[in-house]
Structures are given as C-alpha cells and as structure tokens.
C-alpha cells in the first residue's frame, strides 16, 4: 500500500503528466459582489488580466448589474486597488448609452469612464485591443458583432499584457464557437431570477447557479 502511494507520487512528478489544477493561478480574483458566484469562480472572484465572455440573448437582463460591484471597486478612488491611480473603465461600442446617474448610484467613479464609439467592427477590435494593452484601463467592456477565434485570442493576449480585464458581450449563438476567454458565462433571465451558467472557467468547473440580480 505504502509502496503504491510512493509510486503514484513518482508518477505525478513526471513532467509529462498534465494536471488541470496546476493551471490555477495563485492570484485571487476580483470579488464580484455576488457570493454565490464568487464561490464557483477560481480565486474567489472575476479572473483578472484575462478575457471574460458573457453570452446574453437580450440586453437588460442584468448583464451590467452583474459587473457593477466589481467595476465600482476598480474605479474607486480610495486607493483600495493596486493601481497608482484609479483604473479607467472603457466601454467600446456599447449598444445603448450607459446612463451616468445610474452608474453613479452603483458607485462607479464617473471621471474614470471612457466611451468609445467605433464606426465598424475592425475599429472596435482595434480600440478594445489598444485599451486592454495600454495598462491604463482596469476593465474594458466590448460589444462585438462578431468575435472570431483569432480576435478573441488577440484580446486575451492584450488583456494579459496590460493587466486589464476584458469583458465581451456576445449572443448565445456564440456558445458553439471555440473561445480563448478564461471565463465564459451565459445569462438567462427567467421569472424566478437570473440563471447563470458557467460554460468555461480556466482552473474551475462548469456550473449552473441562480443569482438574484
């Protein structure tokens, strides 16, 4: 018996053995403000320095409310972030006008808001990539019409480079497409609260949970 466990240890030391958990970053996530969600996310919160995809059918089901506590924390001026100055939040090609009074109610620092309205999709991706890799934006929200595998990978790399958090909102049809995002979440609103499915989570496990937004 004893010999067995030592041989197992030996086997695990072999560099050719890949273990999923070794991928987990030591870094902690950014608390989402929703305990149920935090429990299911590796690191206890939103993964930083990476791309998150949120698949949503209709706007207005709580996709922004889900992010607001985290964004408020990032843009806060009280020095609770690691940034020398509060991080900027870039909105690239939002489908409607983000409404400042409501953002303020959620605690977002309005002087750190950057809204970019590109004319087409290539400009959108370029702007998002610039914002992500600049090292100035703590979070970059984007609403691409199409996001192919290559573009997704570029955004993921840009987020890593600029220590930024990219959040792409996509239709549920994108579910079947491969994605380089570290986290993929699908939101479905129903009568009894919002159903949140974690489709892919780097270092975590897929899950389905209900969050009251």
């Amino acid at each position, binding site marked *: 018996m004893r010999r067995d466990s030592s041989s197992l240890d030996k086997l695990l030391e072999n560099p050719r053995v890949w273990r999923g958990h070794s991928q987990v970053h030591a870094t902690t996530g950014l608390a989402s403000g929703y305990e149920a969600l935090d429990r299911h996310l590796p690191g206890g919160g939103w993964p930083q320095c990476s791309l998150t995809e949120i698949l949503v059918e209709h706007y*207005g089901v709580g996709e922004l409310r889900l992010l607001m506590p985290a964004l408020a924390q990032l843009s806060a001026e009280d020095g609770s972030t690691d940034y020398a100055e509060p991080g900027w939040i870039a909105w690239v090609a939002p489908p409607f006008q983000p409404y400042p009074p409501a953002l303020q109610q959620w605690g977002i620092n*309005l002087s750190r808001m950057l809204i970019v309205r590109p004319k087409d999709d290539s400009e959108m991706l370029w702007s998002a990539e610039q914002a992500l890799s*600049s090292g100035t934006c703590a979070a970059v929200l984007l609403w691409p019409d199409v996001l192919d595998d290559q573009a997704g990978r570029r955004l993921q790399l840009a987020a890593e480079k600029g220590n930024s958090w990219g959040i792409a909102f996509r239709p549920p049809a994108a579910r079947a497409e491969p994605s380089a995002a570290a986290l993929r979440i699908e939101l479905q609103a129903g009568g009894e609260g919002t159903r949140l499915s974690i489709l892919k989570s780097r270092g975590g496990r897929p899950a389905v949970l209900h969050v009251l937004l």
Partner: protein
Amino acid sequence: MAAARHHRSSRGLLSQRSLALDEPAARPQILTAPVLKRLWFCIYLPNLALEASGPGDEARVVVEEQHGIHRVLLASAKAESAGIMPGQSANAALALLPMLRVEPRNEVVEQQALEHLSSWLEQFTSLVCFAGSGVLLVEIAGSLRLYGGLLSLRQQIAAGLEQQGFNASLAIAPTPLAATWLARSGRRACIREPANLAAALRTLSLACLDWPNVVCESLTGMGVRNIGDCLRLPRDGFARRFGPQRLIELDRALGRLPDPRTGWRAPERFCADYEMTEEQSDRELLLAICRELLLSLERFLLTRQLGVQSILFTFFHLRNSATQLRLGCANAERLTDRWFDLLRIRFEKLTLPEPVISVRLRGGHTQALRAESGRLRFQGKALVQGHGPCFSMTQLAERLVARVGDHSVAGVTTVAEHRPQLAWRSQDLLPGKTAKTLSTIKSGLRRPLWMLPEPALLPVDAGYPLHQGRLKILEGPERLETGWWDEDGIARDYYTAVNPCGMRLWVFRNRNRNASWYLHGFFG
C-alpha cells in the same frame, strides 16, 4: 566696513539683496546699471549668393542685371579657374566656358539661407542680428564660459559653417560695426578690449565700410584711403561734407557712441518641406520622410522649450490637389515618437490619389511645455507587472481619437437636472478639463444603466404595453413633471417593468396629451 558694503551693493542685485537682509534700516541707494561688456562675433558670407542656391562644385555663376546687362556677381571656384571674373557679362562668361551654369541671383533664397543659419546660431547665443547682405552678428560675451572660451567657441562656429557649406570670414570685436568691417576686410581679427579698436580699424580700407560709392569716390579723391585717414579729418567738416550719419558710424565702430541692435527672432511656427527628386508612392519611404520632418520639428521645439498641440502634414502631388493629414495631441507635445505613433495610425487609412512629390510639415501654434512628473517604478501595478510599453490615459485617448475620430471618444458626467435625458452629458477626456462630477442623484430613485437615445413608442395590447411580450409593472409610478420653463417640458409617470424574457425596462406614460407608453431604458 560701511563704505565697502556700499561699494559692493552697486555691483549687482544679488549682493544688494543680501545687504538688505543684513541691515533692515539700510538707506535707499541709487543703483547704476552695470555696464555690460559685449563682444560681437561677425560672420560675413562673401559667397552667399552662390552658396545659398545649394552645394555643388560644378562651374556656375550667379548673375545680376546691371543697366540692362547680366553681369557675373559671383563665380564658383571651377568657373574662376576658367578665367571667369565677377563683373564680366554673362555672354562673355559663356564664351569662356560653354558648359557654365548661369543662375540669376535669388535674394529670397539668400534670405532663407541666412535665416536657417541664424536659427542654427541661436544655440550659441540669444542675440543674433542681421546686418546688411551676407552679414550676421552674434553677441557672444555671455556664451564664452559655457562654450569653453573664445577660441573654442570660434572653432565650433567655424566648423559648423564649413559643414553647412558656407565660406565665411569671421571677426570678433567689442562693437558690432567694427566686427562687421573687420570681417568684410577678410582679416581673422579678434579684438577683446575697446582700447585696441582704433589701432585695428585704422588700416581698414574704405571698401570695407559699405558706404555709398559717391562717398567713397569723393574720399578717395581727397586722398583718404583708410579709416585712419578718415579719423584724422576734422569732425565738423567731415559731418558737413558727408552727412552726420557717417560720423556716427565711425563713433559707433570705435565704441564712442552706443550701438543698440535688435535681435532676430525665429518664427514661432514650424514649417518645413521635403522635396523629392521624383514622385514616390512607397508608403514606407513616405513615413520615413515624415519621421525626418518630425525630427526637425523636435529640434526646433527643443531649442525653444516649446511644444505644439497640432501638426499638419501636406502631401503634394503633381496633378491632383494636395492631400492633408492633421494630427492633434491632448497636450503640447514635441517628442518625435509620440507624433510618429499617431501618424502611423492615421497614415494607414490615408488614401493618396497619386504619388507624392513633396511633403510639408507645419506645426500649429507653439505653447510652453508643461513638464509632467512620471510615475515612480514602484507605483502602479501596471508598471511593475506589465510586459509591454504602457502609456497614459492621454496617450490612449490620442491614439483612439487618431483612428476612430474626435467625437467618438468621450467621458461622461452627470448634470443636476430632473429630466432623465438631460441629466448627463459627454465631456472631454483631456486632463485638466475633466470637471468633477457635480451632482449626485438621490439613492432612492431607480435609474436604468442603459438609456435609449430617444424614447421608443411601445405598442399596446388590451391596455398593456408590449415589448417582446406583455409587460408587467414592478414599481412605480415616479412622477417627473418639470422643465415647463423651456420647450422640452415633460410630464411623465415612470415605471419599472419586466417582460417575459426577464428584461427589466424603464417605461413611461405621458400625462398630458396622449396616454401612450414609451420605453426609455433598460436596467442592464
């Protein structure tokens, strides 16, 4: 002790100030302006007309029309060796050397060359003056120590002139006129003490003075050959015969009378052209040319401690009208790399109708540069962990504006206003212009995160508003009845509603005219 202090105080402001600190009850003292010792460095360019039109060692002459005949003004070394002399007619010169390139004199080009040279000389001194054709005067008394003494400064200037292809005659004297005359005479004179001036000027011939021919001829007729002879003439008689101006000039040259000069100021706007010998359509090459122009812009701004906020590139074509490309920065900027970065983004999308023959770079209004302290290395997560180049928000905004357009990049702020559509506005991202958010909305009020640009009319089914299904009212109404003092007065009841898809909507019903339902936002 008091006498010594008194003596010291008249020398300069600094010692006077310290004296005032020592003795609070000091009597008011009359300060005499300290006598500035000046030293003038004269650069005389005898061959300017030839050298200004460009380098080249082929046989060429510059001609000028005199009494209807084109006469040779200056001949290059090769032309002179063929026997061509200044003063010959152009035809005679061509007969001597049929291959000769004959150019008419271009005074505009000469002036440009002088200005170019002056802006180069501004690195040595703050006072550069134009003094007649082909003469530049530089005041160097204040620059001697910085440039390692008179000899070293002289060598630096002489080497620079030679490198730029100018054949110059240099002279140094305590008065501007003496320096000019000595330089014209071709002597490499260097006089530091005003007492030695008279002796040095005495032997200069009248030709160095640049006086009108009539005066020189009549003086020569009187047996006066040099300045020493002039000085020996009785002063009142000299002034009566040749005008008081000549006497004043002599006195000024000798330092008996002051000779104030106004310095030349470089234009505060940058403009430079890059002419190509043939049309170019290679974009990489054009970018390299633009970079070259930007580098000269940086040098121009650096010597003045200035920056510009906008620059304009003009690409000239042979047949089509020129293509323009305007770049702007959030702050006054001079660094080539910053501008080049923006240029590259815009140049990618620029369409040139045909090949380019010349590029012009024009700087906007210059502004004093405001230095900004950079972040320390240990500050900021981005700098410590970042792998790539990080830039500031201003730089990011500039890049985005360069590509996406000016009105497509903005910040937001709230406005103290009850009408929801007026309770916010876009604002500039430029630092310093970002106003602090002034108003805060009451926390009890429900406001949607998404706002529609215009309220959308909702269809109604059996009294229920529809938006992808029948709406269910969750909260409300919140009555907003305001703005009656202007055109946009509203009287609305706002409700929070939810539809079968789970979307939370912000809807309202007009109270006055028609009772139809409108959608104004989503709760996001």
